[in-house]
């Protein structure tokens, strides 16, 4: 399967469509892995834009931002799977991981789409550059969370244990955000200015 075809199939899955003809289990696995790898490339684009204040930061961000996304996802996924098992949810762990992968792809796609805007404002505005960079991350997180919730809700529609599946989504999103907060702090600096997020949990919740 060529990358272009995989990308269009991935977009179909991300927007909540069904593949025609329906994909086999092997094809679904390939698409999920492709979603993660594409997400890393898209996150890298945003990292380069957000660090464009200096060449060194930009180059460092090209690998730091994808790693932050990947490591946060890896830290959160086991808890989501355990929640599925403990609550006897009507969703297979493979389906949860697949929906998680496509939603991360959706979120990083938003990040990459906003990357040129982040870069241009970074260099031309002293007021809007950093807020726009941070804002683009929140927009991407909101998009990914909504896509994840919608993907899981569609898969469990009509099955028993629907509420338990949504609980697993909540746990997974919550832990992803918690891990993201600390991995961002660990990888700092990602943008050239110090923000509350640069210090992780301790500075965000300092009061």
């Amino acid at each position: 399967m060529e990358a272009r075809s995989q990308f269009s199939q991935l977009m179909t899955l991300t927007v909540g469509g069904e593949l025609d003809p329906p994909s086999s289990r092997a094809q679904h696995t390939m698409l999920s892995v492709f979603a993660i790898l594409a997400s890393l490339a898209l996150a890298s684009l945003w990292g380069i834009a957000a660090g464009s204040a200096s060449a060194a930061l930009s180059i460092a961000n090209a690998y730091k931002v994808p790693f932050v996304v990947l490591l946060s996802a890896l830290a959160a996924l086991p808890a989501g799977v355990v929640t599925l098992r403990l609550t006897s949810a009507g969703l297979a762990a493979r389906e949860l991981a697949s929906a998680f992968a496509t939603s991360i792809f959706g979120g990083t796609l938003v990040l990459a789409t906003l990357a040129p805007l982040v870069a241009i404002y970074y260099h031309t505005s002293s007021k809007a550059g950093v807020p726009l960079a941070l804002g683009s991350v929140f927009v991407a997180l909101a998009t990914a969370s909504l896509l994840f919730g919608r993907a899981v809700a569609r898969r469990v529609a009509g099955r028993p244990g629907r509420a338990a599946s949504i609980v697993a989504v909540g746990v997974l999103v919550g832990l992803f955000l918690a891990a993201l907060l600390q991995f961002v702090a660990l990888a700092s600096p990602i943008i050239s200015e110090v923000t509350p997020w640069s210090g992780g949990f301790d500075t965000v919740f300092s009061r």
Partner: protein
Amino acid sequence: MTALGGHSAEHIRAVWLVAAAFGLAALAVLVVIYRRAASRRELEDAERVIDDAFRDDAGR
């Protein structure tokens, strides 16, 4: 000089290196999973072609 959580900058750098090593390992695992799924899919495609050919022959 202290960094995250009151630890030294060297400690934080070491934590990042360990985390990055886990990330690299995860990437390697993802590549292996992808390659195995790709070869399984090729096998499924081949089986489908054989099944179709067998059905055609049986229909004649």
